[in-house]
């Protein structure tokens, strides 16, 4: 039971409980209020999935915009309490039950077959791979890094000009070009800092504005059309 398991359990529980509360409220105002913990839990799961930019957009668009628009509309149409009759329709229960069973069957088949081999293992690996290389005594260190194992002394004359040997132990940094002394060490190479972090705005910008440029432009047209449609629909007839 790791910390991420507990965090996931909490946010998943918040999401599911508030989703049930959203659907079961009689008054839509309370439904909208329960949307806030739902979106917060969802944002938490997105952050844990390393979709940080998506989490920020989720909170801004859903928690900030859609929620407020729903609240405004409910206030605007001013429902009287006696108009809110008990509105659960029990006839569609059968359809919903069949749907739940079908979805469960689909999930079970997915879990059994596994679409891509190694998907579950890949989910658990960190997104930045750690590379550790051994450096033999007397060898030159090729790339900057940090010692994870072993004890030695290095000659850093190529970078600092110091002729004497500098003792290095676990946790110390070594620079490229220095010569290893007498001990065998394991050096962890630092990830390439030019590569953007997975899930950041930087890593999404490339695919969004290159491969997905046409869908992006179509989405902007769709939003303009939807905005005009909403204005025309809700405008008072003059």
């Amino acid at each position: 039971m790791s910390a991420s398991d507990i965090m996931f359990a909490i946010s998943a529980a918040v999401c599911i409980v508030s989703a049930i509360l959203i659907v079961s409220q009689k008054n839509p105002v309370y439904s909208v209020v329960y949307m806030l913990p739902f979106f917060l839990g969802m944002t938490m799961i997105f952050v844990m999935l390393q979709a940080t930019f998506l989490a920020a957009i989720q909170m801004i668009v859903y928690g900030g915009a859609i929620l407020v628009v729903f609240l405004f509309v409910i206030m605007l149409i001013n429902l009287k309490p006696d108009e809110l009759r008990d509105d659960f329709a029990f006839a569609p229960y059968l359809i919903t039950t069949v749907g739940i069973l079908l979805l469960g069957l689909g999930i079970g088949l997915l879990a059994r077959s596994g679409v891509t081999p190694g998907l579950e293992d890949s989910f658990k690996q960190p997104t930045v791979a750690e590379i550790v290389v051994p450096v033999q005594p007397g060898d030159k260190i090729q790339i900057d890094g940090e010692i994870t194992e072993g004890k030695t002394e290095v000659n850093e004359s190529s970078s600092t000009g110091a002729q004497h040997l500098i003792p290095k132990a676990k946790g110390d940094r070594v620079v490229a070009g220095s010569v290893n002394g007498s001990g065998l060490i394991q050096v962890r190479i630092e990830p390439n800092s030019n590569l953007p972090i997975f899930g950041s705005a930087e890593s999404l910008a490339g695919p969004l504005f290159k491969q997905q440029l046409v869908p992006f432009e179509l989405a902007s047209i769709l939003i303009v059309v939807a905005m005009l449609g909403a204005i025309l629909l809700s405008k008072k007839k003059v």
Partner: protein
Amino acid sequence: MVLALMPQFNLLSCLLVATLIFIIGAFGVVCRRNVLIMLISIELMLNAVNLVFASFARAHVNLANETHNSTAGETGQLFALFIIAIAAAEAAVGLAIVITYFRNRETVDTRDMKAMSQ
């Protein structure tokens, strides 16, 4: 016993949470008769789909070399971004229709919306 029921943070449990939220949303659309709550339930279903996209994106990051697609993870997150944009447009149009309907008929109950079936 309680510890065994605690979900592990893995792909399957993410998909299970998404399925549960989708089912709750589908239940809201099918079984409720208030148009506003039906619209909110559609938002729940779209969020569940976003969660599936984000989970599979996370799972495909380290498979980029095997699948010969260096942006396999980012593409999944971009799909979720497009879904958020379209959900915003859908909410705007849906709520405009609700406002117009309420102004003319003074109701948000789908049992009263039978002008086209008569």
